[in-house]
């Protein structure tokens, strides 16, 4: 089957700009873990569709705002994680939990705001939802219900697994020269580990590459595809061999199922449990441009049964081992992106890739433009 997306959907800045508005500007986007902002004044910062986001803890209550000071436009919080009040470092404007400016140093001496103008000084507030320990933000003016994006069973399993997360979290970043969509097409491709991870992941886990026949109907009924169908997860791979590690005795295992778990949360979050419930990672692919994607990864174990001295080593070694596998993915995605950048025709999809096809159909409907319309627009420009 000819793929539904054309090469320009991966490489064209015009498409990227529309994605920022119509996907990332409309959908619920994972922003981080609740245990990283559990204490008063703790915060985290992210970007969504080009907008700056801060999630701040106000005396135990989490709020999401645009992280841009109403005064001179400086970022209010400047670190990815930290603990300080929501105060801009430029002129000391301090924001309350409703986002309004609570105090301005030297206000009466220097600013001369009229009452109406003063009352309107506030940060833009965004919708924030918590699923277990996972935090999602929606920057739309009219956010859809979270349940419209993620089916009930997905939300239940995400809540269950993330409630098992420990509160010691390793956070790492790296950047790939590929379009963000390629990462999720790759993750939805159960066949690739046998070729890309021949000597690594494929030695330990066997993933299914079965044809999802239940999705075949949508080729005839593309309008029947719903957003909730694009996210799925659970036990996906079976272990060919499973290693028992010393830290397993120190944590409270999530469940008792010896399986490799994957959750793919549309559009750009991947939750992994690669060892049957002892440790987890969350990959968040943030599009920086049509050809650049920043990956933030959170590594953590299941909640500790008891404190142990080697927990930092466990997380750091886990991160390095996982990165070797991610490097294998990154290499093929960068090569695929390079190929698409010069290609004149769409890719080819097999029937085992029906999940990608369904996702592409929904994506095109959401963008409400065809490849031809982008092409006309580009030529016109």
């Amino acid at each position: 089957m000819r793929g539904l997306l054309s090469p320009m959907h991966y490489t064209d800045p015009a498409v990227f700009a529309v994605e920022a508005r119509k996907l990332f500007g409309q959908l619920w986007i994972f922003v981080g873990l609740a245990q990283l902002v559990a204490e008063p004044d703790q915060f985290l910062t992210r970007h969504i569709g080009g907008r700056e986001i801060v999630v701040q803890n106000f005396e135990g209550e989490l709020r999401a705002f645009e992280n841009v000071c109403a005064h001179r436009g400086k970022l209010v919080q400047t670190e990815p994680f930290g603990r300080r009040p929501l105060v801009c470092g430029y002129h000391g404007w301090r924001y309350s939990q409703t986002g309004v400016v609570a105090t301005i140093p030297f206000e009466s001496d220097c600013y001369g705001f009229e009452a109406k103008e003063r009352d309107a000084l506030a940060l833009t507030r965004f919708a924030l939802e918590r699923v277990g320990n996972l935090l999602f933000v929606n920057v739309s003016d009219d956010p859809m219900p979270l349940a419209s994006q993620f089916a009930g069973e997905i939300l239940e399993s995400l809540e269950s697994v993330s409630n098992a997360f420990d509160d010691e979290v390793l956070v790492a970043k790296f950047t790939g020269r590929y379009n963000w969509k390629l990462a999720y097409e790759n993750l939805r491709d159960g066949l690739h580990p046998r070729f890309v991870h021949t000597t690594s992941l494929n030695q330990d886990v066997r993933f299914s590459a079965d044809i999802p026949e239940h999705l075949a109907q949508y080729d005839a009924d593309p309008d029947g595809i719903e957003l909730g169908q694009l996210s799925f997860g659970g036990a996906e791979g079976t272990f060919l061999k499973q290693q028992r590690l010393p830290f397993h005795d120190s944590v409270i295992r999530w469940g008792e199922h010896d399986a490799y778990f994957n959750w793919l949360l549309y559009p750009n979050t991947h939750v992994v449990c690669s060892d049957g419930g002892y440790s987890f990672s969350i990959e968040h692919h943030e599009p920086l441009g049509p050809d650049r994607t920043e990956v933030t990864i959170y590594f953590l174990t299941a909640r500790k049964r008891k404190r142990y001295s080697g927990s930092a080593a466990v997380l750091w070694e886990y991160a390095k081992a996982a990165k070797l596998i991610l490097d294998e993915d990154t290499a093929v995605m960068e090569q695929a992106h390079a190929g698409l950048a010069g290609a004149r025709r769409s890719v080819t999809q097999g029937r085992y890739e029906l999940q990608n096809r369904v996702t592409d159909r929904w994506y095109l409907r959401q963008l409400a433009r065809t490849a031809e319309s982008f092409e006309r627009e580009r030529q016109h420009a």
Partner: protein
Amino acid sequence: MLDRPLLVVGAGTVLEQCAAAWKEAQPDRTIEILEVGSPDHFTRNLDAMSEYPAERWCAFAALAGTGVNMARLKLMVDIRLKGYRLDSFVSPSASAPRGWKLPENCFVSAGAVVAENVKTRHNLYVGSRAVIGFGSQLGHSVWIGAGAVLGSKVSIGDNSLVGPGAVIADDVQVGKFCELNLAREYRESIASKTFFSPMFDGPVRIYGKANVVDSL
């Protein structure tokens, strides 16, 4: 320096390097090598040490510093729990203050330079041609890679690793469980559980409640 026969226990290149350096420096001493593998890079079966009774032999734990030195520390502790005295070594070609006292299981490689008033705890490894500046303080199980340079009054926390070629500026404090694996200059103090690696962009950090139990 102990004059008992020495059993160098560990794995990998570090085991070979340490044993070779010791044999070259002390040719008249009985020095044996015991390689102990690990199924999980952490736990090791030391039953074969029974052929070298602790009453007559002393030992040295020789492992690489990966995994923030935890496997190296565990090996050292396990050997000590078996009743062995742990020896330390300063290469004859290293430069260290006269009478510098080293705690157990420390190793200073050829060409290293240690300035005056440097204090260290046990299980230190200093690579060849590394420099440790005046008044620096090193926690236990610290690893200083080959050619690394620590300025004056630098502080390195327990279990931390300074990679080959790294340069730590004067007065910088590095926390516990850090890995500085980029050969660059570090000018600002570094919080515990921070990792610099060519595998990732920027520093990698562990956030959350302190879970460190300093067991030694």
